[in-house]
């Protein structure tokens, strides 16, 4: 059967600051520079699934269902929110794109039908992005 990859993109806007709770304001500033101050990004998230098209519907997944998962797991949690104040993911770790993409990958892997998630690409600004892919996948 033919293995097909499909990618859906969403955009969301979020504020954040890099900080570790055990460090003082000055120490955070020293470690993380200007990113220790609250700032924001227009993130673009590209989610790639891979699977065999259903013999009847011809789809790997109904894009409406995928969008519902993205709305619930990503948009409602992160869009026009503050990553530090409005979520619990970054109490112990800074919201670098690396840490953020790992959080997103876990949320989506848990929410999507098992085995479908191929990779997640998170673009923080036009010049910076991270990609997380499952090495076990073909």
């Amino acid at each position, binding site marked *: 059967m033919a293995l097909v990859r499909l990618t859906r993109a969403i955009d969301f806007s979020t504020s954040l600051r890099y900080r570790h709770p055990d460090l003082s304001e000055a120490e955070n500033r020293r470690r993380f520079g200007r990113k220790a101050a609250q700032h924001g990004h227009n993130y673009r998230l590209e989610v790639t699934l891979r699977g065999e098209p259903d013999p009847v519907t011809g789809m790997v997944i109904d894009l409406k269902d995928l969008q519902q998962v993205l709305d619930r797991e990503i948009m409602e949690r992160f869009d026009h929110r503050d990553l530090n104040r409005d979520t619990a993911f970054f109490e112990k770790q800074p919201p*670098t794109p690396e840490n953020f993409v790992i959080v997103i990958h876990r949320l989506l892997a848990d929410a999507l039908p098992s085995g479908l998630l191929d990779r997640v690409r998170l673009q923080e600004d036009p010049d910076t992005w991270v990609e*997380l892919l499952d090495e076990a996948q073909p």
Partner: protein
Amino acid sequence: MIALTRRYRFPAAHVLAHPDLSAEENALTYGKCANPAGHGHDYGLEITVTGEVDAETGSIVERDALDALVSERVLDRFGHRMLNEDPDFRERVPTAENIAVVIHDALAAPIAAAGARLVRVDLHETRRNRFAYGELP
């Protein structure tokens, strides 16, 4: 696997001509790119690295360190320059393929020294041509 990509740009001039070939042969091989007066591009450069995410910094590699390294080894070296005058392009025609390889080889060791692994270089020569070199497909 987690990979981080940063995008940079540099404007540079070049002539596509091999010193051992005649002007006619170069014109035949490279067409208008062989114009001996030169021409140039705004090159777009994407550097992709992998590695462990450091628990303290949350990063594969310190962003400022990577940027400084790329500036020093690539952007300052090639930006606003005639590429054919660079020692690496005396014997080697500065096609985008060769530029991508030279950039990869100039960055691999310093990026390794910074604690990450260079897995891919993408060089955009124009909005219509891009060239990739590295272990990451």
